[in-house]
């Protein structure tokens, strides 16, 4: 009884004579029972099956019950809320059995008035001499204040968890939206690429006795180009080709390109004369695009016919407002003069310039659009220009169609962002008599 011994000592330091000590002793003897009944916490003892055998006044007061209503009639779990009872059966009781004690469990008592009383419960099993469990001693602390505070904390944590979940959800949605946008963008790109494909031959056909090469550059991957070209057979002997540039960019230019390509193909099959083909196109475009927003294109249309000698190829050309084709080879690059042909589609009656040339073995006919010559180069961002192109082409040591296109492709790549327009190249060459011909050309 350490506590009992110490209390009088403490009190005695304040005042004590013998009669005061006696009064304390009497008070303490009286208070053991008093302390149990009116302790600042609830006490109860139960049998192992939970039946209440003893309960103090404090707990009865909290519950609003009398001793007779509880002792021998109720089990501890009867004093709990239903949810608490579930917890008691699934966690509290098994743990108590296993460990012999359990402490600080948060439960709620149900009072006779129907109120809930949050409490903290500690239980200990009292064992007999043979270690057999005899009874359960339980202490109940009023935890209203503490629980209110804990619930605040819990609510705070739940709110934080909710906020985190919301944030994660928002992030997920943003990622989903971005994924969707990327998907849309890639679908659009695919559609544009497919449309662009329809404006150009997927591969150039094999023309007997000739070599053909082409190059196509769009200024922007998500913008349809306005340049076009084609190469196709007319009959067993002759081939037709064209290359041009529709004014403007984007879907409307693409629609016009499509109209232009298929009109020229149909016109050529009807009458392969180059000027007639352009005239047909001019009529179609002028009817379709007259008014305040004039649309037109530049185009060179040509027909290839192998010479009777079996070595050369005759080219007949018509041009509507297009830069002249170049004949490249032998250290030279000469324009085939077609100046004066009018833009196609501008006026109802248009005149187109006609020309003809013969390609010798080792010579290549180059058609290009002005994206090439109008590219900005150098520190002054000057236009590359027709003359520079001619010089470059004349300087090529190898003048086969493939070499010409490869060399110009390299040149264009060197322009970097100076190449700000669409560019199309179509090269049609007569191979030299031997592989060495190109290399021997100065």
């Amino acid at each position, binding site marked *: 009884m350490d506590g009992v011994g110490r209390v009088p000592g403490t009190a005695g330091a304040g005042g004590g004579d013998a009669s005061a000590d006696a009064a304390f002793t009497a008070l303490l003897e009286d208070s053991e029972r008093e302390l149990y009944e009116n302790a600042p916490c609830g006490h109860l003892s139960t049998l192992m099956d939970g039946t209440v055998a003893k309960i103090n006044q404090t707990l009865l007061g909290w519950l609003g019950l009398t001793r007779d209503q509880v002792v021998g009639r109720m089990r501890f779990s009867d004093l709990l809320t239903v949810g608490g009872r579930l917890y008691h059966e699934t966690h509290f009781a098994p743990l108590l059995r296993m460990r012999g004690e359990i402490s600080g469990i948060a439960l709620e008592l149900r009072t006779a008035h129907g109120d809930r009383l949050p409490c903290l419960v500690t239980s200990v099993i009292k064992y007999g001499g043979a270690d057999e469990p005899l009874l359960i001693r339980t202490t109940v602390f009023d935890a209203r204040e503490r629980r209110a505070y804990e619930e605040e904390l819990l609510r705070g944590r739940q709110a934080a968890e909710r906020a985190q979940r919301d944030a994660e959800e928002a992030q997920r949605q943003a990622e989903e939206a971005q994924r969707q946008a990327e998907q849309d963008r890639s679908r659009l790109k695919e559609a544009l690429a497919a449309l662009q494909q329809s404006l150009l031959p997927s591969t150039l056909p094999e023309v007997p006795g000739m070599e053909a090469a082409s190059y196509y550059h769009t200024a922007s991957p998500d913008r349809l180009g306005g340049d076009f070209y084609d190469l196709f057979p007319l009959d067993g002997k002759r081939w037709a080709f064209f290359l041009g540039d529709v004014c403007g960019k984007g879907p409307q230019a693409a629609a016009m390109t499509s109209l232009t390509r298929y009109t020229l193909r149909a016109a050529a099959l009807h009458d392969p004369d180059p000027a007639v083909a352009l005239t047909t196109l001019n009529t179609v475009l002028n009817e379709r695009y007259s008014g305040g927003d*004039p649309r037109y294109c530049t185009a060179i249309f040509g027909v290839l016919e192998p010479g009777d000698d079996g070595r050369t190829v005759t080219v007949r050309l018509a041009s509507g*407002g297009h830069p002249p084709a170049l004949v490249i080879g032998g250290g030279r690059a000469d324009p085939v003069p077609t100046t*004066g042909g009018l833009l196609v589609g*501008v006026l109802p009656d248009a005149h187109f310039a006609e020309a003809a040339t013969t390609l010798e073995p080792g010579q290549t006919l180059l058609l290009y659009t002005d994206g090439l010559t109008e590219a900005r180069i150098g520190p002054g961002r000057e236009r590359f220009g027709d003359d520079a192109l001619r010089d470059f082409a004349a300087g090529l040591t190898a003048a086969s169609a493939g070499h010409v296109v490869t060399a110009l492709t390299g040149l264009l790549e060197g322009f970097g962002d100076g190449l700000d327009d669409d560019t199309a190249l179509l090269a049609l060459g007569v191979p030299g008599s031997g592989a060495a011909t190109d290399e021997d050309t100065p």
Partner: protein
Amino acid sequence: MTPFAITVHASEAGPVLRIAGDLDFNTASGLREEVRRVPLDPGRLLILDLTDLTFCDSSGISALIAARNRAVAAGAGIALAAVPPNTARILGIVGLDKVFPIHPDAATAAKTHETP
């Protein structure tokens, strides 16, 4: 580089639009807009003075054609004045040198215009 600008003044034959700078994809709509706005009566002459034109691409050509369409629709005439050599060459390539009357300067253009 000359900044793009259009100044409008009157001649005895009709309005003169003096175009300075590059006439290209970025600026062509400015010329179209100005051409739409300028008063133009039947029989008058719209003169495009290209003295200070530094460059003309296909969009610029488009705008020139639009100007011609506007003049024709108004029952008026159109003329180009002081075409720089590079642009003259382009006009030759695209065949417009035969579509537009071309004069050495705006005054000459105005003088040679015959009122119908």
